[in-house]
């Protein structure tokens, strides 16, 4: 980006010289003249010049900035509740400082290990399977030569992505219903959903089923950029189908794979609240109780605002650490990073 940004600047300098615009002014391209004279002007003058030219841009960004400030940054300030005793009168501004009391309470609570275990197990299975499946699907779809069949397969595989979580979970319930369900009719009179050990597989399999097609679009886009001559060249060298996939397709999508992996690492400890919440029942609770649902129960249903905030903050920090570490490793290893 930096390389392309310098291009208009150079153009602008030439233009300002030609049109005899005074140094430090902003030319028609809106590029601030970065000559020494321009940079030496006092700050208010430079700011005035900036706003005089860029006020429409600020007006266009302002609504989005206001919404983000109010609905993302004010709640971030509210995280201080994790370190104070919530006071209903003073709201998120007040409360008495208690330090790490609520974090200790969480770490020492009997559910802590179970919550961590469940959250990690469910999210790791989903992360790994939900990461591999779209790559394989993209490589397969890319092998379809007939464009009509290809777009048909794509259309079909995207479709489940648009089904709501409520409907997905009720489909799971109906299909696994003993006796009448399409799967449940083979399992005798015991419901698979009542079996706690099957909670994780049911969760990730349906998750892969729903999002595999959609998630593979990004890899298909990368694959469509392969120069066809590369395939021809490889064929001449005697490459069969498998070799084409191994030596042309896979190297092509590797950078995309890296980015997607980093992004996914940022959600290693966030299992989708809605699906787990809806799939939970008293029988599978030992294996289905996860941090996000627990936060909801403690904070919203139980009104323990400070404790709930502390659990939420703990979750966010772990995710953030994973994201930063994954980003760092990827940057070192393959020069691919998101920041």
């Amino acid at each position, binding site marked *: 980006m930096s390389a*392309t940004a310098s291009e*208009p600047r150079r153009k602008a300098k030439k233009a300002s010289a030609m049109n005899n615009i005074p140094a430090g002014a902003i030319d028609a391209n809106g590029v*601030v003249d970065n000559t020494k004279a321009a940079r030496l002007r006092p700050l208010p003058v430079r700011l005035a010049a900036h706003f005089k030219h860029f006020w429409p841009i600020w007006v266009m960004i302002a*609504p989005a900035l206001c919404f983000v400030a109010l609905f993302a940054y004010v709640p971030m300030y509210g995280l201080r509740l994790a370190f104070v005793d919530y006071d209903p009168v003073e709201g998120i501004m007040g409360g008495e400082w208690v330090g790490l009391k609520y974090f200790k309470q969480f770490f020492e609570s009997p559910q802590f290990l179970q919550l961590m275990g469940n959250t990690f197990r469910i999210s790791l299975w989903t992360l790994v399977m939900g990461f591999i499946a779209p790559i394989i699907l993209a490589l397969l779809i890319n092998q379809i030569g007939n464009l009509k069949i290809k777009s048909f397969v794509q259309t079909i595989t995207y479709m489940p992505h*648009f089904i709501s979580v409520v409907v997905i979970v009720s489909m799971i319930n109906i299909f696994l219903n003993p006796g009448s369900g399409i799967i449940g009719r083979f399992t005798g009179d015991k419901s698979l959903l009542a079996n706690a050990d099957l909670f994780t597989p049911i969760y990730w399999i349906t998750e892969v089923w729903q999002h595999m097609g959609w998630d593979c679009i990004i890899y298909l886009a990368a694959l469509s950029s392969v120069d066809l001559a590369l395939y021809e060249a490889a064929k001449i060298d005697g490459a069969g189908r498998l070799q084409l996939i191994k030596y042309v397709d896979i190297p092509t999508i590797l950078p995309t794979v890296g980015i997607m992996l980093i992004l996914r690492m940022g959600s290693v400890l966030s299992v989708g609240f809605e699906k787990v919440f809806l799939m939970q029942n008293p029988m599978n609770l030992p294996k289905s109780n996860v941090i996000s649902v627990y936060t909801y129960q403690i904070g919203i249903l139980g009104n323990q605002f400070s404790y709930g905030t502390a659990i939420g903050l703990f979750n966010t920090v772990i995710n953030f650490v994973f994201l930063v570490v994954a980003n760092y490793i990827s940057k070192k290893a393959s020069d691919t990073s998101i920041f």
Partner: protein
Amino acid sequence: MTSATLTPGKTSADEIPWNPKVRQKKTVVDWIVDIFIVALIVLIVVAIIYPIWFVIISSVSNVDAVNTGKVTFWPVGFSLGGYARVFQDDRIWSGYMNTIIYSVVGTALNMVVTIPAAFGLSRREFKPRRVVLFLFTFTMFFAGGLIPNYLLFDSLGLIDNWLVFILPGAISVWNLIIARSFFETSIPEDLHDAASIDGLGYFGYFFKIVLPLSSAIIAVLALYYFVGHWNDFFTGLVYIQDDGKLPLQNQLRAILLANQSNLTNTGGMDILQQREFANQIKYGVILVSTLPLLVLYPFLQKYFNKGVMIGAVKG
């Protein structure tokens, strides 16, 4: 591996290997790989389409056949009784109305907020854009979480208020980045130069030149936002207590999952009949609630690839 070498001596047209019309002879391994690939694709397509197909055929099949597990590939008998009962339920109607209002108004606000901001952030000469963009992207990875949100909404009077479906989600940073990438890569910079020479300011350039060229990204974002609103279940669960304000997904949950189905109470059936119809009603409800998105889907499908591809371009 990938370097092409010309083999001297082969002159016949059939043997020129780089002629795309000439197919290489397939080896046995190639055949096996081909068959394996085709089989795998067929398997995946069937696995994805079958559950949806099963819901469709079950919703129009005879109740007894559905309950005893006789419906497998084609509808058995034919009955629209499930649908008749679905449409008699007030909750479905009020949920539908609410969801349509929230989705339409919400998406409209989303677009008004996202598109201009994305355009502003796409202007390279706008120096503060890196800082501003960081302010946005940071919120993707770090957030206040459930409780601070709840308390904020409470102090703003958004609890049990329909605006909670509209305002807090007014901007999705992910969609903002997609739109920004689109403006950066798909709108030629020369247009801006030409517009400036003709005396157009940023507003004129945005409304008269950029927007008319951006129908693809507008369609994609509108679809993303609309689907998000339509399928939103969390907001209704946490922030709404009044049944009359609940959107479709929360009403669906009551009918489909919490087994609060009072659909069958109409028509004076006994308990046995009620239980018989319960399943078929569920199939009907699933289809009725998902239908609008599945109807929109084929029309917007051509934009999907483009939209996701734009999102893949890193800024």
